């Protein structure tokens, strides 16, 4: 571990706000891409399923 | 239809639509006027910035005029006729571009000496400016054609075309203004001119083909 304590790890010298804001923003963007893509796939499958079932009935 | 009859008809069409070329020139002048009025009319600002101002104005004016290059042909169906003419489409694109280049760039080159006085460019530097315009502007037209061909079927394609094409103009603008800046401080500028020529030659081989692909995809 490059840091002596948890507090030091969080403050990162004086650079804590910079480092943590970068990782925070990146995390949000990456998670956003992940969830958006997974949800789009699920929705498309659901839409097609409903459509195929409707076609089968008629 | 033959290559020569197409070429002749393009010249005729440009001649009949003189106002389009005039519009491009007026637009060019307007963009240049924005800088002294918007930033500063002082010689200290304008002299070093002149190359960049003129080149940005040229890039925008060329984009504006190239954008409408296929619009009318698309609307009246002659673009379809070009596709089925049995002639090689990239060559037709190139002929059309050559006519447009002359119609826009010749008056613009005539205008530059006057403008260079208004922007305090020395006579020795003017020569470099004109060289960069001659060597670099073909690339602007050639790259712009691709965007024009892609967006021709859109009613409001101008902004979209600006968005996709302008980034590709950056190298031309960088090396042109670089050559002018180098000349202004008395450094050699042959390298930049050579790169400009190389970029124009490279786009000359690539973009007629890409524009032809885009035209074929757009007419339907």
């Amino acid at each position: 571990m490059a840091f002596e304590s948890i507090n030091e790890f969080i403050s990162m010298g004086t650079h804590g706000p910079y480092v943590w804001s970068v990782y925070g923003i990146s995390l949000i963007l990456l998670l956003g891409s992940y969830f958006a893509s997974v949800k789009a796939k699920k929705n498309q499958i659901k839409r097609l399923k409903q459509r195929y079932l409707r076609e089968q009935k008629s | 239809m033959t290559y020569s009859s197409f070429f002749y008809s393009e010249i005729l069409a440009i001649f009949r639509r003189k106002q389009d070329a005039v519009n491009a020139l007026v637009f060019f002048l307007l963009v240049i006027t924005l800088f002294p009025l918007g930033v500063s009319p002082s010689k200290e600002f304008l002299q070093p910035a002149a190359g960049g101002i003129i080149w940005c104005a040229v890039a925008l004016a060329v984009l504006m005029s190239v954008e409408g290059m296929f619009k009318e042909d698309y609307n009246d169906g002659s673009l379809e006729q070009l596709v089925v003419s049995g002639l090689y489409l990239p060559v037709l694109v190139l002929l059309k571009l050559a006519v447009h280049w002359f119609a826009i760039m010749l008056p613009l080159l005539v205008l530059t000496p006057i403008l260079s006085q208004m922007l305090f460019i020395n006579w020795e530097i003017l020569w470099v400016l004109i060289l960069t315009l001659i060597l670099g502007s073909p690339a602007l037209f050639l790259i712009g054609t691709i965007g024009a061909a892609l967006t021709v079927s859109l009613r409001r394609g101008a902004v979209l075309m600006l968005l996709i094409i302008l980034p590709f103009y950056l190298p031309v603008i960088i090396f042109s203004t670089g050559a002018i800046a180098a000349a202004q401080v008395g450094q050699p500028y042959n390298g930049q001119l050579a790169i400009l020529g190389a970029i124009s030659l490279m786009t000359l081989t690539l973009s007629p083909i890409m524009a032809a692909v885009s035209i074929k995809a757009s007419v339907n």
Partner: protein
Amino acid sequence: MNWIWFHKLGSPKWFFQWANKWSKFAFVIGLVMLVVGIAWGLGFAPADYQQGNSFRIIYIHVPSAILAQSCYLGLGVAGLVSLVWRMKMAPVFIKAVAPLGAVMAVIALISGAIWGKPTWGAWWVWDARLTSVLILFLLYMGVIAIQNSLDDMQLADKAVAVISVVGLINLPIIKYSVEWWNTLHQPATFTITAKPAMPMEMWLPLLLSTLGMYGFIAAIAMWRMQTEVLVREHRSNWVKKEILDNGI
């Protein structure tokens, strides 16, 4: 050389089933490497002797910058494949990957700007690397804009393919011109990432997080491509069978 895999890749059905198998694998491996690499970089790698702890931003900045460029390279190659071989999956790839590349460019830009503050004392410096990522971002926005503006799918596919190919050829020129421009305007600036001989403890986590980012993005890209395949092939029997039988 056996080219069968190349032709298979062109088949939406084959791709869909292949991605079903491998996407989760890529995702898990990628995520583990990314987390390990970043945790290592944040907690265990030594601080930079010049920049101190702000240097730890590199473990997200460089992977995203590399991914932004790799995605664009992929776009260009896919554009070429789409124009020359008219392969069905190539436009699907472009459509799925372009927004991911844009996100990567945004992360690289934001992290670069925030890193710039403690390093240069300014949020933004017209440094060659940041400027070319900015242009890369604009190129992505162009691809996305034209994709979304053209309603006719065939035309949109052709258009993004053309723009990607033109971009692929232009990217080196743009990069070179920006670097040349940068040296002209800012001789000998202190660039944030170009460091001579990074020590192993700094370099290994960077490698890990970069590879992890590749896996992570590859998995998301596969899911997005699958979605797009489902949209485009919804009339074909295999999609119907896949959805009704397997309930994916």
